[in-house]
């Protein structure tokens, strides 16, 4: 009988302990898999979000990413100048402000309104209806549409609260022309998209030509386009998608990477310790049996290999089970983390990538081998005659 079926029979002979061992590895493996998905999940998800918006470069007024930086003034002219560069395909001005929405005494408060220029297609995805073109037209996200119970064609009142806007901006009636999925929208936050001019009016400063940032699409080489824009306007901060991701990686995103590293280390150590104990106790209980096999002619390498195969079977079966279990667990944990306020609906904390699967497999293989080292040593150094004698006497 070859090594693997023999090891399999050893495990099957003790179903309770083998099943528990496999289940333990599956639970630990699932946690390990999830931690690997978490370590790069936010970065991958954010990169996907950036790419989905279809822009290569973001231009802002200071070195903070949009949200904390001052507005860019004379934004439309700047966008036209940048769009005229040979390395640039299009440039779009984007401005976001806080807003409350109301319709027939139903209100959706603490939301946001996005105003976009005309240099490129808007960054949202239309689900129903069309894009706003004329004055006082907007698209709502699904949450706002649900809350206000509106469909394209309805009218909503918007009260915007704008940085640099009028002290008491007017409440303006907008016609809903579409329902859209807006970039970086939260699951439980009303949001709308309109033209830059309409947003300026809603802010009570129709003459203002402000933008939080400019979204630029290059003709194919984002770095070259970024260099051209930097040469044109050295006072602005220009980020390619990769640079923006890099800055986010150095900021708050590192928390989840660190916690994932700590938990991965703990999980692997935990699995290693427990499988070692499990195999060692199991081997210690079968010393007489191993000595008998050696006396029957089994070579030292063969019995050592049996122990290794047992470890590989426990970790292998547990590892395979850990993948679907880990996927389920990741969905649950992702749901928990996504309930944090202000997290965009499309952002995920646990994102699958093939590298995570390879690392997971590699760590489990290493665990199986290292965990088997000590019991393998016990079996290799087993004195056959003395062990058999002890077995008979006891």
């Amino acid at each position, binding site marked *: 009988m070859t090594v693997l079926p023999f090891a399999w029979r050893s495990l099957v002979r003790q179903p309770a302990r083998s099943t528990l061992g496999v289940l333990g590895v599956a*639970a630990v493996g699932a946690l390990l898999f999830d931690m690997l998905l978490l370590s790069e999940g936010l970065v991958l998800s954010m990169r996907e979000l950036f790419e989905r918006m279809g822009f290569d470069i973001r231009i802002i007024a200071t070195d903070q990413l949009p949200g904390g930086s001052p507005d860019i003034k004379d934004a439309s002219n700047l966008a036209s100048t940048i769009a005229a560069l040979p390395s640039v395909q299009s440039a779009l001005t984007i401005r976001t402000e806080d807003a409350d929405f109301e319709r027939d005494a139903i209100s959706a408060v603490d939301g946001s309104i996005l105003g976009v220029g005309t240099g490129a297609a808007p960054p949202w995805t239309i689900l129903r209806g069309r894009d706003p073109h004329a004055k006082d037209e907007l698209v709502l996200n699904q949450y706002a549409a649900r809350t206000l119970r509106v469909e394209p064609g309805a009218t909503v009142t918007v009260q915007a609260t704008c940085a640099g806007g009028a002290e008491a901006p007017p409440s303006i009636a907008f016609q809903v022309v579409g329902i859209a999925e807006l970039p970086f929208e939260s699951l439980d936050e009303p949001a709308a998209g309109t033209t830059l001019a309409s947003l300026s009016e809603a802010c009570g400063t129709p003459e203002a030509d402000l933008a939080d940032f400019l979204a630029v699409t290059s003709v194919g080489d984002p770095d070259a386009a970024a260099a051209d824009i930097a040469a044109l306007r050295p006072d602005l901060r220009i980020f390619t998608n990769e640079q923006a991701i890099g800055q986010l990686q150095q900021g*708050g995103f590192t*928390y989840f990477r660190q916690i994932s590293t700590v938990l991965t280390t703990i999980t692997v150590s935990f699995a290693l310790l427990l499988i070692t104990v499990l195999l060692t106790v199991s081997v210690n209980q079968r010393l007489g049996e191993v000595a008998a096999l050696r006396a029957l002619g089994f070579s030292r390498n063969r019995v050592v290999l049996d122990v290794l195969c047992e470890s590989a079977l426990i970790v292998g079966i547990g590892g395979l089970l850990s993948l679907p279990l880990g996927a389920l667990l990741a969905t649950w944990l992702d749901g928990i983390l996504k309930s944090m306020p202000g997290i965009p609906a499309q952002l995920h904390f646990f994102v699958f990538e093939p590298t995570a699967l390879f690392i997971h497999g590699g760590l489990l293989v290493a665990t199986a081998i290292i965990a088997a080292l000590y019991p393998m040593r016990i079996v290799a150094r087993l004195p056959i005659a003395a062990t058999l004698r002890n077995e008979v006497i006891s």
Partner: protein
Amino acid sequence: MKIRLFVLVLTGALAAFAFALRAQELPQVLVSRQLAQLEGLSEGDTVRLATDAKGTNVREFRIAGIYEPTPDPARLGNVPREVRLHLPDLLDLTLQPAGAEHVDSINVALVDPASAAEFARDVNARTPGVVARPAEGAASLGSTFVVLERFHFAIAAVTIVAATVFLLALTIMLVDERRETIGVLRLIGFPARRILMQVLVEGILIAGAGALFGLVLALASEGLINRFFQWRYDTALVFVRVSPNVAALCVAIAVPLGATATVIASWALLRRGGLRLARR
């Protein structure tokens, strides 16, 4: 010669005094520890601040002190390189014309903090364009931490499930190892109940010792983890704290779990006959 030297020293002393006097007259600022370390600044130094890199409208300030910024979990990863100015100095620096000064926010301390929501409603009704919110609601940080706590709890739950499964496997093996001893005890007249009680007490003692070892390990690693993350993020935030409540919860979970696993593993064995157990 002596007179010349005296005049020179006197002039120098006067210049130093005048310089010190001028420095005293300068408006004062506080500098964050991180910025002070980065730029090699210390208390009493004179610094020049401007609103842009070109140095437009540059003003001189004297550093009145170095402060440790209040740890802010929402800004984890951002090293606070900050300067705190008196509001009039900031308005002067940013060249805001009289009557057009503006601030980002006003913090209001109420005589009765419980009336915050009512006060906010009142302000919102009376001053259009101004948004007043109770501090608790304005900062969504509270709910962020509730979510993070829930996440950590979920991770802990999965770890406990994995640990329980392993614990059961181990106890089954350990109890199996003592099969003959238990068989002999049964044969000489020990009732199953008595043996089970002994196993339970043993389980409680082992689980208690394990839980205590775990707590000591957690306490030892607490400082290590905090120091690592405080160094990594250059913050005074505390990341791990083994509070009495957390310690009590861990013991309350670990000891019954360990004892129960031992009893469950032993129960299956005790249902067999003494002879079978003793292999006779």
